[in-house]
């Protein structure tokens, strides 16, 4: 299905896949640690409104998606921090509002249709332009910098918010930081796996990794490896078989989870059975 003319397209796609495979699980580890596995889904829904807004205003959809997703992430964080009562429902309202807003706005825009949204909902890695790649690269650097610089603090925050506060950490700032970083990641991954499957790339490699590990750092590292294998492997598969890359990537990640689950069970069993749980 590809010839030499497409080789630069393939190169760009592979680089994008690699970057997404690195960033999504890195942020995902903190998100899962915080027990907010569905945060990526929520942001993804909201980002759709951002994409549609881009078409409506003739702006680059990725840029409007970044802005709207970041605002949505901040809104989710504010709802979450307010307390549990009603937070669950409030989040659901944001999700539905995001999808509905996206579909409505794309209908209002001149050139757009629901078909336009499909490439964002399910990804269209083969249409990654050089400009897209610069944006993805920049966001990747931003996301990984956050993890490197604030990782120690985020670990404490995601483990126990009260302890973070009693350690003098800027809890509100860090909470916003992790939420906005997640939003950036969603937008980065949007082109590769699509908004509907972004969250899978943030959660599944982490879930697979923690079957094999005992520590946070190790989980983070192995999750990033899982992520890269899934994105690059899934994309490679679609070069031979004509299926949607997003689906192939996520299914490969899930297969990795199944293997890790079996392997992890075996490892734990062969270790002594001292554990009480």
């Amino acid at each position, binding site marked *: 299905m590809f010839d030499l003319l497409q080789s630069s397209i393939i190169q760009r796609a592979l680089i994008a896949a690699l970057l997404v495979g690195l960033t999504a699980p890195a942020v995902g580890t903190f998100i899962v640690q915080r027990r907010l596995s569905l945060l990526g889904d929520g942001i993804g829904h909201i980002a759709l409104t951002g994409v549609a807004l881009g078409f409506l205003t003739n702006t680059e959809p990725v840029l409007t998606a970044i802005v709207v997703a970041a605002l949505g992430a901040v809104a989710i964080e504010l709802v979450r921090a307010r307390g549990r009562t009603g937070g669950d429902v409030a989040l659901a309202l944001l999700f539905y509002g995001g999808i509905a807003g996206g579909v409505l706005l794309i209908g209002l825009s001149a050139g757009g249709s629901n078909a336009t949204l499909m490439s964002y909902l399910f990804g269209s890695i083969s249409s990654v332009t050089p400009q897209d790649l610069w944006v993805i690269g920049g966001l990747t650097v931003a996301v990984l910098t956050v993890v490197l610089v604030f990782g120690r*603090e985020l670990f404490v925050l995601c483990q126990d918010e009260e302890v973070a506060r*009693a350690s*003098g950490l800027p809890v509100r700032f860090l909470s916003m930081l992790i939420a906005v970083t997640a939003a950036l990641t969603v937008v980065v991954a949007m082109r590769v796996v699509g908004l509907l499957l972004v969250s899978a790339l943030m959660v599944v490699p982490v879930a697979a990794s923690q079957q094999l590990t005992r520590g*946070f750092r190790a989980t983070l590292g192995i999750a990033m490896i899982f992520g890269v294998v899934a994105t690059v492997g899934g994309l490679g598969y679609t070069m031979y078989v004509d299926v949607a890359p997003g689906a192939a990537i996520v299914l490969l990640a899930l297969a990795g989870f199944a293997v890790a689950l079996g392997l992890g069970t075996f490892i734990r069993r062969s270790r002594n059975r001292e554990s009480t749980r």
Partner: protein
Amino acid sequence: MSFALRGSGGRETPEPPIGVLRTAQAGQDPAGRETVFAMTGGRVELEGRSVLRGIDLSVSAGEVVAVLGANGSGKSTLVRALLGLIPLTGGGTELYGRQPARFREWWRIGYVPQRLSVGGGVPSTIREVVASGRIARQRRLRPTSAADRDAVARALATVGLADRAGDSVHELSGGQQQRVLIARALAGEPDTFVMDEPTAGVDAESQRLLAGTLTTLVAAGSTVLLVAHELGPLESLVRRAVVLRDGVVVHDGAPPPAVGAHALPGHDHVHPHAAAAGEGPLPCEVYPSTGGQA
């Protein structure tokens, strides 16, 4: 650890903070010791329910204070409010002479929360959790120092988990997880320890270990504020007990002798000291050995 280096009487009292209004010398008790916690008329409402109703409490450096009371009496809420983790709806509270929002020397506080939120959704090794106790002493972008590593190693040794440092905290028993949380606080080498139910649901060995650790800390001059259902092996350490009932302090002084009897089966929950406090019998409906959140 550094607490072992401090003489029991040789604690320095820093200059009193400026701008703090206090009847005695600012930031000190009459004996000249630094005031660690000072709550005046503290009120807390949680979800419309009044949990603390006018608490006056002052804790000086070097004191060992137990907050006692039945489930729901507001013990945990009190210590969390003292740390500024829960906002007051009335009155005020100070940490080392400053409002919690303006307090900056968080390395002086070692908070041991009620068990386990340890771990979250991702496994963490014992060492990772204990090392995170250094966070208040670490600067962003500074790599982990030798002092950090030493403190973590000492903390792990103190709670007897040095040989298991690489294990996941998820694999530990309740008592061992409690020891991890205590080691995390120890690793930060704070002046003051705040422990929420450190003995609840903890095996006898871990309880003895906790008592031993606390003895060392107290001898070195550390301040300890702990919440407990029953003092158990900690009884000999605690010199002052604050008993809460329905969000009000009903006793503040020497530990009520009957509290120790809670550890015994079949005790009748009648407290001779309660009458002396002028508040009638204490509420001792249930003192389960594994308690929920107070």
